[in-house]
């Protein structure tokens, strides 16, 4: 069964989003499609199905700011962080890359708050590794 991913901006693509470039030349956009798994999980299945790697990941925000991660990393990470204090709350878009068991994560909100930290690599489904590492893990 083919995996549904979004290759051009349409109504399912949020204004603040991650964008992944793949080694086959395709560009995949985060989407929100009812009834489907999160876009990052579908992207993980898609790169497996196609036998390709993410070569670059970036985040774009509605405000116009963007975060560009360096190309050709061992793995890329994406997640959202939701928080609430009772008086305020929000959601941060987090993107990062993994190398040798660690990852550098950038957390950012649309209004400009941002925070970066080195953390342990969380692994799948949060991290999507490049093909060579996935093949090694499968052996």
């Amino acid at each position: 069964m083919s995996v549904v991913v979004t290759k051009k901006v349409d109504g399912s693509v949020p204004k603040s989003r991650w964008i992944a470039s793949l080694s086959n030349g395709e560009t995949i956009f985060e989407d929100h499609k009812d009834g489907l798994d999160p876009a990052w999980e579908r992207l993980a299945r898609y790169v497996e199905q196609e036998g390709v790697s993410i070569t670059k990941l970036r985040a774009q925000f509605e405000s116009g700011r963007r975060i560009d991660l360096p190309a050709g990393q061992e793995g890329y990470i994406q997640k959202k962080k939701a928080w609430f204090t009772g008086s305020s709350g929000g959601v941060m878009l987090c993107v990062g890359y993994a190398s040798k068991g660690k990852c550098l994560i950038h957390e950012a909100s649309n209004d400009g708050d941002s925070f970066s930290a080195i953390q342990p690599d969380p692994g799948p489904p949060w991290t999507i590794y490049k093909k060579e590492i996935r093949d090694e893990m499968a052996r």
Partner: protein
Amino acid sequence: MASTIRWFGGAGSPEIAPAASGGFNTLGFFGSSFGFSIRVGEYQTTTFRTNANGTSNGSQLPNVRYANTSGAFVGAALVAEELLEIENNLATLNIRLNTDNAIKTQNSRFRAFDRVNINNNPSGVFIAAAELRKDNASVRGSGDQFWQQIYGSGSVLALEDQTTANATQHDWYVAVTASPVSIGEKTEIGFYFETEFL
């Protein structure tokens, strides 16, 4: 993706409204009943939903009072129960995340702070918390066996990763107990929750 975090006073209890609502937006710990103080060094015997200055009773909530490192008095019980035997619906707080797409969660955290900076300790009160995970009366729970004191970034309660299946609603159940360390009304206490998802 739209997401909403809401706090309820125990499962099935009314929502503790967002602070900006001006309504019953506060979790209040009291002595023997609403408005009664807790003696220094003792723990709350009642918990209420109340307004910001604690003067209006917005309904009684489940009370889980510290008994020992692994036990609590639930409601008006005179005999302590193990934390692992307290059912979710008796938790002080039910924290609920709703998202418009089904997700898994990880790295969920609950902390107490001074309502100014989430890294600061709450002021004038000892706060301990434990996650409850017992949704079947006949099966022993799988949550926290021991209370954990929580204070700012120094001690944060880690909650269960919910990664088994994608869902649009995730619930966490937390028992919270409070003990003043000095005389006087304590208002520099807030709670903070965070979670991660794809």
